[in-house]
């Protein structure tokens, strides 16, 4: 809560002002019964209707001031909470951008999104509503105490007695209900999981005729959820009857005490009527208090979740090795190791060198470390051992923008946003239409873009839902090529392309981007066969390294992959020609 509260600090004068105005408004509300008491006790006995009208006018004035103050305060509250939320959201979003990928992974995508959306929204509501409604009940209580003490200090004691009782009720109910709500959330998560399993596994469930069983499974969690919700509700439901009972008993006490006081000439009946009014006003304000409490606990939980992110310190970066200029190598990995979680290595002893314009092919099983290698090359993660150099310089010593400027990358299932094709290729960079077209042509994407209504201006749906898998991949490759990168990274970026389009893409790359150093990850041997260097990864290690021909000769795993893909009994050694011979 502390960090979020610090966002309120620059607004503390406005906040104090709002509170003051709110207080004045509430006082005006409270003056009305006060005036009523004066009319009944002091004015009526003087039997002057003119005076009654005058004091009645006073009441109307109070009403007018109250509405003015309250509206003014509400507006100020909305403006302040809007400003705070905007700044908080901005900082949170910027922080999310600054987090290293490792930190972001720890946070997880879904939790990052819910912190940005639900949590900032809760904070906004919380700030706004507490200023508007949350402070009203306490203000009315305090204001009521002040005014009534002027009327009759003894009766005020009865009102003051009700306060700790109400505080206790709110405390106990909150304390008891929070664990129950937690449990409700857990059971809800379980219900959602069963639902999700059923939606994803619909084919299997139908094929195995397990419908009745699944119905039973859902029934169990459904019944439990309904029951947990009932129990949590039962606890909270006690708060309203209890607090209104307290106030009403207080009210009864005022009447009773008032009777004795009036009888002894120590008080007057008008005061009792004013007290009764105060109790009604306060108990009206109390009615919303449970809702405020639920909102406050939500707001506090959200504030905590936001702070967790804002308080993350940047990952300490190891000192970069001294620059080694005039290296003949564009990219070099020197005995690089890496571990995501620090338990076991995800990459071990990777060592290779690439000249400008060369192509590196990487092949290996899922989880063998292919994408990890790319992540290191992009400096998204830092190696835990060894050294990565770009143009002879330690990658950790290169400014992220400088590295990004020379790189074009298409990740596996990379990100496509709901925007035009143009914006998706440009991706927040500036290009002319000619440049975009050129990139799209090389990526074999121009043909389908041109056929789309509006061409480059065609709107792509979120996640590229209105594009086929192959079109998405070609769009991503166009994005990677648009900046004419010196370093191109394609992480399994052409798996959905048919073999012919894939081949055309490779031809375009070798013709148009001959000077580009390329790192290509593929599942298909055919996609990387022509590379200058191929790494065969298994469980984070390079178990084979060399050209296609060398690997076919020396690396059994590579040979096996190639054979599995191209036919076991082929006895396959050479290039396409030998195969054409067989086929014909």
């Amino acid at each position: 809560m502390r960090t979020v509260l610090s966002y309120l600090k620059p607004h503390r004068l406005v906040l104090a002002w709002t509170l003051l105005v709110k207080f004045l408004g509430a006082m005006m509300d409270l003056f009305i019964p006060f005036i009523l008491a004066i009319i009944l006790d002091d004015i009526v006995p003087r039997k002057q209707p003119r005076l009654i009208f005058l004091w009645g006018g006073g009441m109307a004035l109070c009403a007018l001031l109250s509405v003015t103050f309250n509206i003014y305060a509400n507006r100020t509250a909305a403006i302040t909470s809007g400003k705070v939320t905007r700044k908080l959201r901005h900082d949170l979003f910027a922080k999310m951008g600054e987090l290293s990928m490792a930190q972001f992974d720890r946070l997880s995508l879904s939790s990052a999104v819910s912190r940005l959306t639900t949590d900032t929204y809760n904070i906004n509501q919380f700030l706004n509503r507490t200023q508007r409604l949350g402070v009203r009940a306490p203000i009315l209580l305090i204001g009521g105490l002040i005014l009534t003490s002027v009327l009759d200090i003894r009766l005020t004691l009865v009102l003051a007695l009700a306060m700790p009782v109400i505080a206790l009720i709110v405390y106990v109910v909150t304390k008891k209900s929070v664990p129950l709500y937690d449990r409700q959330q857990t059971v809800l998560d379980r219900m959602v999981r069963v639902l999700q399993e059923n939606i994803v596994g619909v084919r299997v469930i139908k094929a195995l005729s397990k419908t009745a069983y699944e119905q039973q499974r859902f029934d169990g969690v459904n019944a439990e959820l309904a029951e947990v919700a009932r129990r949590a509700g039962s606890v909270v439901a006690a708060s309203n009857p209890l607090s209104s009972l307290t106030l009403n008993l207080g009210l009864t006490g005022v009447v009773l005490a008032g009777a004795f006081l009036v009888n002894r000439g120590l008080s007057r009946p008008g005061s009792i009527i004013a007290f009764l009014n105060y109790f009604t006003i306060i108990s009206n304000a109390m009615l919303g208090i449970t809702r405020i409490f639920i909102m406050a606990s939500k707001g506090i939980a959200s504030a905590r979740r936001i702070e967790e992110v804002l308080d993350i310190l940047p990952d300490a970066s190891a000192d970069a090795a001294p620059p080694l200029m005039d290296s003949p190598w564009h990219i070099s990995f020197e005995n690089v190791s890496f571990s995501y979680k620090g338990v076991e290595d995800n990459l071990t002893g990777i060592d290779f060198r690439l000249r400008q314009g060369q192509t590196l092919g990487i092949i290996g099983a899922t989880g063998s470390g292919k994408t990890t290698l790319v992540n290191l090359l992009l400096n998204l993660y830092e190696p835990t051992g060894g050294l990565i150099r770009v143009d002879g310089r330690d990658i950790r010593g290169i400014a992220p923008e400088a590295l990004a400027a020379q790189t074009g990358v298409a990740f596996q299932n990379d990100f496509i946003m709901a925007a035009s094709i143009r914006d998706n290729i440009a991706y927040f960079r500036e290009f002319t239409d000619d440049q975009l077209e050129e990139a799209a042509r090389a990526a074999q994407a121009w043909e389908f873009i041109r056929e789309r209504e509006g061409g480059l201006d065609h709107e792509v749906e979120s996640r590229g839902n209105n594009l086929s898998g192959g079109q998405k991949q070609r769009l991503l490759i166009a994005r990677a090529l648009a900046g004419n990168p010196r370093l191109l990274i394609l992480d399994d970026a052409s798996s959905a392309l048919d073999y012919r389009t894939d081949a055309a893409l490779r031809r375009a790359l070798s013709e148009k981007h001959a000077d580009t150093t390329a790192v290509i990850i593929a599942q298909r041997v055919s996609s990387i066969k022509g590379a200058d260097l191929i790494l065969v990864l298994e469980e984070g290690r390079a178990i084979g390294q060399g050209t296609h021909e060398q690997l076919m000769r020396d690396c059994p795993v590579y040979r096996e992959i190639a054979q599995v893909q191209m036919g076991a009994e082929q006895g396959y050694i050479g290039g396409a020609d030998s195969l054409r011979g067989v086929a014909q």
Partner: protein
Amino acid sequence: MSRMIRGGRMSRNETSGDRRSLPEARLPRGQILRRLWRYLGRNRALLLLAMLLTFLSSSVGLIGPRLSGLAIDAIGLGRGQADIPLVLRYTGLMAGTYLLASGLSYALSRVTLRMTRNIIYRMRKDVFDKLVHLPVNFFDRYQAGEIISVVSYDIDTVNESLSSDFLQIIQSVVTVLVSVGMMLYIKPVLTLVFVVTVPLSAVYTRWITGRTRPLFRRRSRKLGELNGLMEEMMSGKKTTRAYGREARVLEAFDLKNEEAVEAYTTSEYYGTMIGPSVGFINNISLAAISVFGALLFLRGQVGLGDISSFVQYSRRFSGPINELAAIIGELQSAFSAAERVFRLIDAAPEKPDAPDAHTLEEVSGDVRAQHVHFSYLPGVPVIRDFSMHARPGALIAIAGPTGAGKTTLVNLLMRFYDIDQGSITVDGRDIYGLTRSSLRAAYTMVLQDSWLFYGTIFDNIAYARPEATREEVERAAKAAMIHSFITKLPLGYDTIIGDDGVNISKGQMQLITIARAMLSDARMLILDEATSNVDTRTERRIQQAMRQLMAGRTAFVIAHRLSTIKNADTILVVRDGNIVEQGRHEELMAQGGYYTSLYRAQFETY
């Protein structure tokens, strides 16, 4: 990009920026009300009790002001005039009625909660029972997240409204009627004040809500846009980082953030006028009542206690009237939530089996398709005049690039989708004359995305045959080459899949689904080979296990490996959803068509 289910409760309208695309037909209001009523009606006893308690608790609560007025009259106007025993009696009665009212209102909450529990349970059950009978194409068309949000959030919304708003309305009506009755009883002349202020309040509220509604709608829209952007840019974080575009993305974000905050503030600017303004009108009526009451008191036409009661009733009376506006808003969102729930319940289920449907038994596995035509969308044929014959034990490979529609055939064979024309037979019997369950039971299948549920490994393997013994399950696991892995886990077969800390790789998950299939003695097999190479050792195991699985079964394999393709008795070549070629490997190569070019392309070097 992973679709996510939002955790935590969301406000009803404001935070959801996603577009729903569940069936869109609008339901008439009357129908929605009737169907909601049916849920309430199921709990008739509780409902009646709740209504009775509502009536009692609000009327008992309303005795209080009258009693306090009488007590004040008993106190008298000054020293020594008080009738203390009478005051004691009235205050005693007051305490009694307040106690009773609170007791009744707590009892009411308990009854309401019980009713809510029953309704919410029933509604979810109805939706789920419906869901499991929906055809597969429903789940292909709609996103899981949407369906889940209907079952969780929408049903919650409907219920909050059903239970609280419904009773709230009863309570409001009781309060208003009793208050008005009491005020008329105490002093009819004073109620004339309300003849002016109540319509004023109503007109004002209508006017202001009319003005603010578009502002609130704009605020929801802007927030939705902002949320959409944030969600999108978070999933694109790695890309943004790789291209170093954080600063520009932040600029785009600031723009949307600014708009959203501005829309929020504007709507609040007018929206927050309502409360104080209505309060103002109430205060004015109170002032008028005070003045006129005092004048009447001056003339001795009304007692002090009467003024006190009257003022309190007027405060009670205006409460529900103000609240009605809020309730109407809630009812609107509950209505649209109910509409979404009912639309889901109304989705067309799988056609029931024909009454004379035959139960398929003793299958030998002879599958024949003749002149089959099929389209997912009317007018867009996907399969035209397709014929094929798979003899018992044959291997049929389905080949083609990713996304070409290889699963269509699986959909037709298993009757997940119905063909438009032609016939498919199993052992010479038309599959549309068979019960669905017996047809589907004749197949066993292993899909590429291994489907495992949260439960033990044992339960997952024995899913299709819960009566299977430990030995049978272990035998299946051994045949699927996964037994030794399982026994190495600390809890062995009792390990719960899906718990954190249990590390099961994709390949191992696939082996578990193969074990599940092994347990089945179905004569026909559908197999979707994995595209991703798991590590070579597991890969070899999977292949071996799959070969075991195919032995003696008629197998339809969505093939990615050339070895499978070349050994197949028939290869179906799929392109853009159509079966373009069919035959054995050698025959297809000799044709020199699409298959040949596909096959060759992978050996080209660039």
